């Protein structure tokens, strides 16, 4: 479900907050089933928390180190999302007995 959700956000600018308190803003270029994320044109949100930013323009972030992803509310169709989540409960797309 969230894999598809992120695919609809490709091209949007998002801010990824990692478990080590780093916050990176960039344009979402790619996502996979593990919710690994590729970002382009990245900028540090708070320079003090994110060193070595000059060397890096694009990055690959392992899904497991993500704490949050901040999204523009305008990019999200909440009704569609809620509907999909309701259906997901009946029939999970990754494994599941039903």
């Amino acid at each position, binding site marked *: 479900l969230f894999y598809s959700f992120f695919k609809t956000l490709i091209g949007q600018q998002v801010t990824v907050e990692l478990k080590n308190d780093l916050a990176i803003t960039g344009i979402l270029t790619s996502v996979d089933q593990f919710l690994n994320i590729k970002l382009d044109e990245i900028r540090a949100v708070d320079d003090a928390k994110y060193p070595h930013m000059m060397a890096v323009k694009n990055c690959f972030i392992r899904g497991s180190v993500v704490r949050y992803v901040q999204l523009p509310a305008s990019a999200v169709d909440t009704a569609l999302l809620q509907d999909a989540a309701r259906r*997901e409960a009946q029939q999970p797309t990754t494994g*599941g007995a039903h």
Partner: protein
Amino acid sequence: MTEETHNAPVEPNAVEEPLDLVRLSLDERIYVKLRGDRELRGKLHAYDGHLNMVLGEVEETITVVEINEETYEEVIRTVKRTSEMLFVRGDGVILVSPPVRTN
């Protein structure tokens, strides 16, 4: 030897699993406790079996304990931040509940 030791529900609606209770909170405001002394309050738009969630209009509260080494006092502060739409990764979630109200 094929014995049914578990009574699996034939009708999905007969028994409610914990995730079904979360399902009832869709489009409602909820309270989420996360690892790292963090709490979120927001509107639940989506969730999955890992407890990954998308929350709207969310307020995050981070609790910080500062200790004054000289006076031995503990100062408890909270830092609040807000987001209009936030994806939360499930592996940080501890609990999910309707908002805690002091009745």
